[in-house]
């Protein structure tokens, strides 16, 4: 082979390799991306049944039920318009609390109950996942219907002597 031919072979080989990798990556991407739905969308039948997705909203006060001494629990996620019931088995994060933002990963059953396999609540008392905040605000004319915690802007929360 002349150096020119060799270079052509090399370039073609690299291009082929990169495109195969790209195609496989795209496939993995399509199969493994999780979409976000809020309780109104889920209750309205927009969310897929039997496909994993992210459900986000607020933990509705007074709905967290636990079998004493067991890891099984159920609670209701709300956007203050529609509610979705969630069942979960496992350890919940430190900041999982009533009236706090929560994101759950899992599947929706035929009965409309969401079975979560993972629950996320970040390590900040003021934290709310941006998609959750937006989903709730959208339903209430751009404002939060409740203000669970003061925002982290300094002047308002610092005690004055």
């Amino acid at each position, binding site marked *: 082979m002349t150096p020119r031919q060799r270079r052509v072979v090399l370039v073609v080989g690299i291009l082929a390799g990169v495109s195969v990798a790209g195609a496989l990556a795209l496939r*993995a991407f399509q199969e493994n*991306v999780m979409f976000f739905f809020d309780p109104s969308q889920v209750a309205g039948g927009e969310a897929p049944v039997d496909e994993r997705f992210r459900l986000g909203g607020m933990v509705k006060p007074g709905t967290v039920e636990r079998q004493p001494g067991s890891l099984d629990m159920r609670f209701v996620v709300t956007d203050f318009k529609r509610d979705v019931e969630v069942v979960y088995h*496992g350890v919940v994060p430190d900041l999982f609390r009533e009236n706090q933002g929560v994101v759950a990963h899992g599947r929706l059953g035929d009965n409309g109950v969401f079975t979560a396999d993972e629950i996320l609540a970040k390590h900040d008392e003021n934290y709310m996942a941006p998609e959750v905040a937006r989903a709730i605000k959208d339903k209430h004319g751009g404002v939060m219907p409740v203000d669970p915690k003061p925002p982290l802007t300094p002047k308002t929360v610092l005690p004055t002597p």
Partner: protein
Amino acid sequence: MLPEVGHFALILALVLAALQTFFGIAGPALGRERWQAAVAPAVFAQFVMVTIALVRLGAAFVRHDFSVEYVAQNSNAALPVMYRVAAIWGAHEGSLLLWSWILAAWTLAVALRSRSLPAHFAARVLGVLGVVSLGFYLFTLATSNPFLRLSPAPPDGRDLNPLLQDPALVAHPPMLYAGYVGFAVAFAFACAAMLEGKLDAAWARWTRPWTTIAWAFLSIGIALGSWWAYYELGWGGYWFWDPVENASFMPWLVGTALIHSLAVTEKRGLFKSWTLLLAILAFSLSLLGTFLVRSGVLVSVHSFAADPTRGLFILAFLIVMIGGSLALYAWRAPLLKSNAGFEFTSRESFLLFNNILLVVATATVFAGTMAPLISDALGLGTLSVGPQYFNPTFLLPVLPLLALVPVGIHSSWKKGRVGDKRGMLLTTLALGAVIALALMLGAYGGAMLLTPIGLGLGAWIMLSSLADPVDRWRRKLSQTPAIVGMALAHFGLGLFVLSISVVESYTLERDVALGVGDRAQLGRFEYRFDSIEPAQGPNWEGVRAKLTVTRDGEPNGVLYPEKRNYWVQRSVMTEAGIDMQPTRDVFAALGEDLGAGRWSVRAQVRPLINYVWFAAFLMALGGVIAATDRRYRTAREATATRATNEPTPTGGLPAPGAARIATGET
């Protein structure tokens, strides 16, 4: 007054950075030597000023000056002094100040070590670094000033985020930033070479140690972050493909490619424009990482407050830096042609494959990290990308990359003569396979398809990376830092692959509900919940449990996981109980009180997990050793001598003896 001194020093640093930029870029362009000579003093003065600013902020923390808003937000009278110092970089404003200080330190180091560089080239390097400093000072002063006062001052502060009250926090951000910012030096060298329109082997030899050291810092920073997440977040994982983790991993991947491509540029004068592009890319990804973390577009466990004006500023800065450098590249890179051929199985080819595969791996991480942002911006729905995407797509380019490592490190420049080493390669491969089988059958039992591949590849890389130094030792040849460093770094890579394969294949985990006296089985391990008692620290109170672990009935470890309630921030923290042993970590984290006297407990057994971080440390150490190789020093001295003898050095590879003769003369 004292915080104002810091504020004022920061403003002076901004002015000095502007002077540094102007003199550094305009001086050589207009041929004004006196302008050029003003660059280094500006660098020294700027470093002094930003150091004063950093020390003033630290003093405000140590002295509990809650009239400073940033201190009031991130400290508390009960906070131990170590965390008060670390709190300087515990939130947004202070971390930017730390960023600027580290950049000033790198710039100072370049100024001190560049006396032997051609003066106009050194001035340009420092000028480009000045642009970066300027951007960060402007950003800090305009949107994120840590010296703002509160009036009236609150009696006490809001405390540091409890998650950050950990010894690893003291080291993780500075290390990470030292790596991020260190790539600015490689970037500045690349831009200076493009401004000069000349790039030779000497350029690569100057750039290599800087890049390698920055890469080593970044490796340690990432490893520390992973270790911290493992024991502090209470989830027991060590890598989550979280956007902020990816933001630090992408510059690392491109930086790894850059180190290897620089080797080709130094030894063979090839890949010149590619090397420049990688240097631009590595620093651009560092800036992008800063943008992702600081702007609040991504919310993750690591990122602090979100603020759109900050995001906009960083985005504009990003566009100026990346756009500017790429425009410079488009204009100047065609000048830097290299004409030399190489054979298909030569070292050049293997390093080319290394570069392509690393860049492809970076691209897959990039796609997964940016997809949620892009989809959101285009209104295509809110989506998230998790390990299910990252794990397979990342392995796709990385597995062939790993398989090429043992062959590549024993190939020769220019000519493909892998055949000479065939015996050694096959022997180590066979040994690697034996080790993999022994681990699977003897120690851990059956596994998935990828397990033998990962174990075998890891063992093969480890063994074959030692072949060179062992061979030299047997033949009583001297060991140069370059050889030892390279062997150590690749040995570390092999250990990393092997240990991560074991961790991923053989980790046992289970969430259980346990009351006092209850037992839970986890493979051959048994956890017994002995007690749970109240516990107290300087700024928290909580409970501490005691769990005894046995393996096949034999005592294996005692764990004390804690649940802490930090008073000031009213936040609950999980402090995992971990028993570390050479072969495995036994881990327990307390969940919550489930009622009926039982607690939820996350129990995990992770074999060889500590070797993952140790391996990262070995890689970094290898890099540092390689960067101390004599030829970088002698090359510098040689160039300096030549530069004084003949005003325009011709470039290209100096004769092997030239360096020694030159040093002999001085």
